[in-house]
């Protein structure tokens, strides 16, 4: 009986040993994974707790980078605008300079610093005056055409009435047909060429130039284009509406003809 018990115990131990051996051979990978997985679990938990903090830090860094880049972008845009403006100014000044060189007049270049405050008058103030050689009545032009005339003088500034002012007048002619008239302003940004003979050949699209005979303006300077031709109320003469060639609302640089 005692021997039988010992045999059963031995068999049981052998069975356990064999089963352990089989388990260690067949299921080693699974067990390894399980044990490794279990061992990594705390590490992963700790890692997960670090993840939001890390992403927050990187997000904050990205936001800072974005704001820096935005500022840089804005600065670059401003620089680009300034460069474009400088390029435009350069082009304008080059054109003025080439006009100044090609003409035989004594010319003083000036910059427009202010426009008239009243809608009843059309005038500008320029940054050159008596000390630069400008005199009352000097004509003011640009490379595009006639601008106006100096009417008020100071040491370092001058006031100019534009061709669209009601008080402005000058001798002018139609370039194509040589029809002579008196050009005066009409407030609305345009001018009127008046006292044209009824039989004169004046057509829409004709170019109007300065007359120049004993005038303050040099001869042949472009003034504008005829946009309308009508009879005066009296019926004795014609008048033409002339659109100035120079854009008077955006004048920036002008040339004052001091002698021609």
């Amino acid at each position, binding site marked *: 009986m005692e021997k039988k018990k010992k045999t059963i115990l031995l068999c049981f131990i052998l069975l356990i040993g064999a089963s352990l051996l089989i388990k260690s051979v067949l299921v080693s990978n699974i067990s390894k994974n399980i044990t490794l997985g279990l061992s990594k679990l705390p590490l992963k938990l700790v890692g997960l707790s670090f993840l939001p903090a890390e992403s927050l830090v990187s997000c904050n860094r990205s936001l800072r980078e974005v704001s820096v880049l935005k500022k840089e972008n804005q600065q670059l845009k401003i620089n680009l605008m300034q460069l474009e403006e400088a390029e435009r100014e350069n082009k304008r000044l080059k054109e003025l300079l080439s006009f100044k060189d090609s003409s035989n007049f004594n010319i003083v270049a000036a910059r427009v610093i202010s426009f008239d405050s*009243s809608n009843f008058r059309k005038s500008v103030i320029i940054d050159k005056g008596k000390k630069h050689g400008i005199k009352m009545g000097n004509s003011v032009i640009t490379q595009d055409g006639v601008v106006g005339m100096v009417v008020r003088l100071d040491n370092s500034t001058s006031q100019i009435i534009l061709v669209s002012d009601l008080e402005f007048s000058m001798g002018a002619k139609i370039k194509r047909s040589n029809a002579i008239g008196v050009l005066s302003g009409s407030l609305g940004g345009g001018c009127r060429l008046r006292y044209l003979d009824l039989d004169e050949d004046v057509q829409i699209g004709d170019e109007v130039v300065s007359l120049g005979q004993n005038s303050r303006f040099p001869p042949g300077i472009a003034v504008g284009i005829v946009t309308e031709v009508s009879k005066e109320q009296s019926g004795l003469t014609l008048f033409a509406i002339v659109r100035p060639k120079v854009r008077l609302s955006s004048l920036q640089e002008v040339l004052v003809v001091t002698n021609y």
Partner: protein
Amino acid sequence: MMWFYIFALIFIFLETAFFNHFAIFSIRPNLILFLVTFFSFYFNFDIIKVLLFCLFCGFLKDIFSVGPLGTQMLVFICLGIVLSYVSRKFLRYNWIFIIPLYIFATIGQGVIYVLIQNIFFERSLSLLYMFWRVLIWEMAYSLIIFFIFFRPIKKCAIDKLT
């Protein structure tokens, strides 16, 4: 009170430099006239204060204009007297009253300007011509701008006055 003088300086700068590039039929909004109308009517100030402000605004207009010095001063003083009289009679704290008053002030300004030019400087300006060429556009343009500037001016002025 000081705010109105500051606004006058800002407006004259805007009129002579900024709005010139946004002129419609070569007409710019008359912001100074709007300010004078607002000042004279809306706050029922003492007549001396109104006249001083009108004189200041007229002077600003005159020094930036090619016309004879004093023309705009006279125009604004006349307007100031009429507007402050209307203000005492019909004072209403409602912005809608400013619009007809501004239209009246614009036409009044044209009439006084033409009269001064024709009487003192022997010119032959036509009021009708001025109306169609200048005043009607000036009125329309100024009223559009009016809605932009009305609230900030009112806020500044009322905050300072109360």
